[in-house]
């Protein structure tokens, strides 16, 4: 076997178009071309603007949790663009006359990459990024507990995403959906490298997520500001803690299941081949032992965001803090008890189905507690509909519909009628778009000033909200309808005329979502252009409640000049009510920050090369890559000079400088918070 393994000319994206010209291969070639040209364009831009060096020294080598968080979010947004575009192409396919313009195979690749990307390379990096930025600031920490490992997690995730992008240019992706069930994904039925792309891109990112989970958990346990008890933490930090536990325990089943699949495919093992004593149900069990908690990994951070945004923009304390915390814990625990509802129809006994059906419905109870908590927080509050608040309230309305259809599906008898239909597709999009994306959009709009020092443009933010909201209803309510009429999912085309009008509405909805995404890109563009007038150097532009708002915007690299003394659950609110505009410092002491290093990037790069080599069976290169990865870790283990000092004097200067900015910033009324008068630090209690 050659050193290049199974790679050959036909794997290059443009070649199939020449050997078999059609609209389908043309679209594939075009998509590959966009990736290649996009990469080239970025490189040219970086060279022309001379940005390589700042990119390397400020971003690629950074160990600062805020910057790592921003990179995660950028990754999520880039992948979101691809995911939404794929959705639009699939919707267009289904409204064009049968059999549509895509080959069946190509359509299967589209829904597989769409699902894989949206879960692993949009949702996961998005929430990991938001947690990275916000959680340490909310618990009074200076960084993640393991900043180096944090950067390694980041670059492993980016490596996984890069592999999915590479599949557009070199070879094929998998065609068996984001769940990749064998036997279809076994070597007999899926002989090309598609499934291997799925296995190894997920392999990289799930190792990254496991490490992130460990990092979040240890940070929360060990780095809370002195005096902060667990039940003093913000709800977002609680959501992070529960998410971290889910990440630590749930990612491993996915890693194990996908490696087993890899052994079955490449080494002739029989984990999942029924004829040789394997059992494919073990794949389903392990996949959903990961997959179901995964749903809550995705949703809990968004719940955390809503629990921060809604009190702020209602001008009230969160209603029922303790019940919200216990609801979060209950959801995290219950999430491990329901996985079998993903295969009610695969032949287990009615008793088992009944047990898992009831367990599933139980999750509705703590979730309901949360919804009521948010509503009662708003009750008699002074509501201000910022973009973040719009996404949060839009979520409540929309998510409840998804919750109700979820309880319907939790009933095994109903599930027998609706499984594998578009009703199910509508249901999980109904959970994840409001329950994850809206949460993350709210988070970005809300916390953006902490990272960049200026607010995002509200006008375009609101436009994006309405387009997303209308687009969501347009795209998914029709799927509920035709799902109940019997339309199966994952179909390359439909011939039933009754579905057609609904599919047209869904198509328009998808276009509306695309417009919403475009509005968000415009929002960022406009905000960057007008950043001078959107600056909020004094910090706290929304009359916020968490201690992250006691800092100036953007937050300095060391986060806190002194670690805040926690005397209550909301010390920043107490300080403001006592008429203070900066929190009293505790004691200035020298601190140490990790030095920037390119090592995590190199580890990620080598790991990605290793995974790529595994996909195309280049065993020699894979072995070299694997060893190189560990050699890099070994080299790092010799590095003892990895911290740099920030002196107490610098911290004091930073504090004094922030204080001067705050004192020179005029107080404004809450009604002016979305205007250019807002330079930070609204003092509603004072006006």
């Amino acid at each position, binding site marked *: 076997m050659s050193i290049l393994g199974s790679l050959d000319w036909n794997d290059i994206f443009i070649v199939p178009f020449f050997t078999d010209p059609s609209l389908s291969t043309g679209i594939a070639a075009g998509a590959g071309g966009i990736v290649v040209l996009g990469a080239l364009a970025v490189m040219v831009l970086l060279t022309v603007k001379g940005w390589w060096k700042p990119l390397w020294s400020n971003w690629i080598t950074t160990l600062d949790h805020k910057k790592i968080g921003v990179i995660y979010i950028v990754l999520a947004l880039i992948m979101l663009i691809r995911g939404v575009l794929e959705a639009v192409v699939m919707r267009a396919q289904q409204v064009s006359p049968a059999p549509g313009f895509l080959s069946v195979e190509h359509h299967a690749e589209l829904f597989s990459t769409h699902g894989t990307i949206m879960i692993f390379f949009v949702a996961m990096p998005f929430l990991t990024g938001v947690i990275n930025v916000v959680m340490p600031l909310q618990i009074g920490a200076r960084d993640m507990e393991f900043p180096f490992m944090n950067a390694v997690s980041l670059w492993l995730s980016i490596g996984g995403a890069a592999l999915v992008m590479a599949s557009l240019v070199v070879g094929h992706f998998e065609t068996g959906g984001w769940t990749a069930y064998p036997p279809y994904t076994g070597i007999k039925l899926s002989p090309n490298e598609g499934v291997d792309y799925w296995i190894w891109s997920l392999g990289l990112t799930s190792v990254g997520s*496991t490490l992130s989970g460990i990092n979040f958990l240890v940070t929360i346990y060990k780095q809370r500001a002195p005096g902060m008890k667990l039940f003093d933490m913000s709800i977002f930090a609680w959501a992070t803690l529960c998410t971290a536990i889910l990440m630590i325990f749930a990612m491993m089943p996915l890693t194990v299941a996908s490696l087993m699949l890899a052994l079955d495919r490449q080494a002739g093992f029989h984990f999942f081949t029924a004829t040789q004593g394997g*059992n494919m149900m*073990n794949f389903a069990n392990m996949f959903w032992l990961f997959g179901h908690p995964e749903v809550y990994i995705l949703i809990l951070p968004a719940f955390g965001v809503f629990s921060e945004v809604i009190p702020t923009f209602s001008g009230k304390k969160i209603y029922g803090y303790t019940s919200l915390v216990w609801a979060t814990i209950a959801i995290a625990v219950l999430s491990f008890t329901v996985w079998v509802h993903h295969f009610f129809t695969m032949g287990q006994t009615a008793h088992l189905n009944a047990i898992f059906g009831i367990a599933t419905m139980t999750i509705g109870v703590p979730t309901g507690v949360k919804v009521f908590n948010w509503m009662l927080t708003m009750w008699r509050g002074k509501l201000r509909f910022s973009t973040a608040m719009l996404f949060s309230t839009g979520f409540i309305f929309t998510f409840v519909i998804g919750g109700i259809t979820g309880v319907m599906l939790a009933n095994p008898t109903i599930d027998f009628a609706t499984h594998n239909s578009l009703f199910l597709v509508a249901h999980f999009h109904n959970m994840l778009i409001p329950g994850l994306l809206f949460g993350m959009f709210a988070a970005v709009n809300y916390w953006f000033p902490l990272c960049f020092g200026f607010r995002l443009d509200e006008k375009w933010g609101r436009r994006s909200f309405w387009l997303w909201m209308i687009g969501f209803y347009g795209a998914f309510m029709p799927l509920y309808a035709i799902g109940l009429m019997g339309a199966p999912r994952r179909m390359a085309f439909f011939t039933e005329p009754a579905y057609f009008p609904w599919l047209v509405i869904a198509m328009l909805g998808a276009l509306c979502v695309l417009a919403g995404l475009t509005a968000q890109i415009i929002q960022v563009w406009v905000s960057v252009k007008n950043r001078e007038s959107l600056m909020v150097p004094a910090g706290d532009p929304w009359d916020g409640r968490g201690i992250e708002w006691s800092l100036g915007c953007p937050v300095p690299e060391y986060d806190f000049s002194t670690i805040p003394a926690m005397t209550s659950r909301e010390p920043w609110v107490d300080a403001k009510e006592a008429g203070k505009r900066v929190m009293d410092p505790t004691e200035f002491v020298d601190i140490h920050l990790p030095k920037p290093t390119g090592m995590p990037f190199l580890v990620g790069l080598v790991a990605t090369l290793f995974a790529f080599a595994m996909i195309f069976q280049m065993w020699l290169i894979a072995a070299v890559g694997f060893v190189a990865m560990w050699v890099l870790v070994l080299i790092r283990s010799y590095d003892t000079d990895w911290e740099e000092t920030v002196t107490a004097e610098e911290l004091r200067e930073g504090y004094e400088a922030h204080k001067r900015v705050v004192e020179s910033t005029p107080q404004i009324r809450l009604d002016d918070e979305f205007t250019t008068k807002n330079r930070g630090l609204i003092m509603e209690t004072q006006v």
Partner: protein
Amino acid sequence: MSNTGAAHAASHDHGHHDKTGTVIFGFWIFLMSDLIAFSLMIANYADAEWHGIANGPSPHELFSLGLPTIETMALLISTFTFGICTLGMKYGASMKRTVGWLVVTLALGAIFLGIELYEFHEFWTEGNTPQVSGFLTAYYSLVGLHGLHVTSGIIWGILLMVQMKTFGMNDLIKSRLVRLGLFWHMLDIVWIALFTKVYLMGVL
């Protein structure tokens, strides 16, 4: 706001605050996620052991207790010697002693691994490869995964001895040795489960 937190704050973020405890806690958590992998492999094995024999041998036909018992003894003793190694380090034993006990531990680990590989080789040459049945797939993967861990433990130990030479017994090295110890003890506990499930229950 009062300054009640100041004393705490000072101890919290002064200088190179001692991260040893935190790092070990983090490693503990990692080991728990690793245990999930072993649990899943054991569950998979328990399923394949009954239903996955296909045309291959059954556990009863394949296993005997002789070599696995010696193997188990080697590993159990190695976890004991590792205990002596770390306890000695705690109570100020010389570097020579610490390294000595580590060498004994790793050598016992190597004996364990050697017997395991010998057994694999025997089965393999008899035609009982992992490609024969779901049961054999599960067997090689489960025991092999553990063996892979032992191998990494041995490599880690050797590299650590080199670092002991370079750095001397500083806090960093001590913390690494404690983590290797945790890893090693976990492998021992996992092996007890494997030995019981695979060999004892397979033979009985």
